[in-house]
């Protein structure tokens, strides 16, 4: 059974991006911002993978039975991007820990207030 999903995938991906972006901008808790960043990035990954899919294709590993392969390039790019994402998360979290030590809070507006509004 094949349903023509058309562009549906992309639209959902966009909704996820919006959710991630909103979390990053609007949430005060620094770690929650990082979660938002993650959601944003993962949805971008999904966009790449979605475009790499070929109808009736299989995973890009050579086999005798395959009719078509999905695009390996997209997978490779996203493998790299995932690592980059987690690296950013790690540095961000380390910063959050230090900020909590220095300010005693992780709330963005409180930190801005303690910095004298700069």
């Amino acid at each position, binding site marked *: 059974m094949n349903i*023509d999903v058309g562009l549906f995938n992309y639209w959902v991906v966009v909704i996820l991006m919006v959710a991630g972006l909103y979390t990053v901008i609007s949430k005060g808790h620094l770690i929650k911002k990082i979660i938002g960043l993650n959601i944003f990035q993962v949805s971008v990954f999904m966009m790449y993978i979605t475009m790499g899919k070929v109808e009736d294709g299989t995973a890009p590993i050579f086999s005798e039975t395959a009719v078509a392969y999905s695009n390996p390039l997209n997978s490779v790019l996203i493998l790299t991007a995932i690592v980059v994402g987690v690296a950013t998360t790690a540095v961000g979290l380390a910063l959050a820990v230090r900020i909590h030590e220095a300010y005693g809070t992780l709330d963005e507006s409180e930190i801005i207030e303690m910095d004298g509004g700069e």
Partner: protein
Amino acid sequence: MPELINIALLTFLVVISVVIIRAKDVFTAVMLSGIFSLLCAGLFTVMDAVDVAFTEAAVGAGVSTVLMLAALSMTTSQEKERPTNWGALVVAVLTGALLVYGTLDMPKYGDPAAPVHTHEQVAKRYVETSLVEIDVPNMVTSLLASYRGFDTLGETTVVLTACIGVLLLLGGRRREEDEHEGS
């Protein structure tokens, strides 16, 4: 059939993302983001990206979640109440609208004739000749190791950078604590 799984997973993801936004406790949000990553991994498998799915499950759902939990244990998981930030919503939705506009000229999902699959020297070449040129059945591995090996080197450097960064930030910080209290 895979399309149905696809739609179901995507719907789930949207629901989870909304719950994450609304979660009062960051701990909950962290756990949910782990689940989010796992579902993504599932989705990647459906879309034939098994290597990515594996990495996402290990790194996105595993490592990231552990790191976040560790960070939370050192800080606080309570989030201050904030009114809905309409400005942020507008920015985010506008960005989304722009992207949706951009999708209108995109090739359909799974279209084998899409340019991304038909470039003679890129995707087609990888699929058709990598077994001969590199002699590894997994095309993703061939790409990672050879055709785009330099990205992989860059990726390794990113990890190195992150490690150094975290060490710089957190290494031997016990001694400094007093100083920072004072500043």
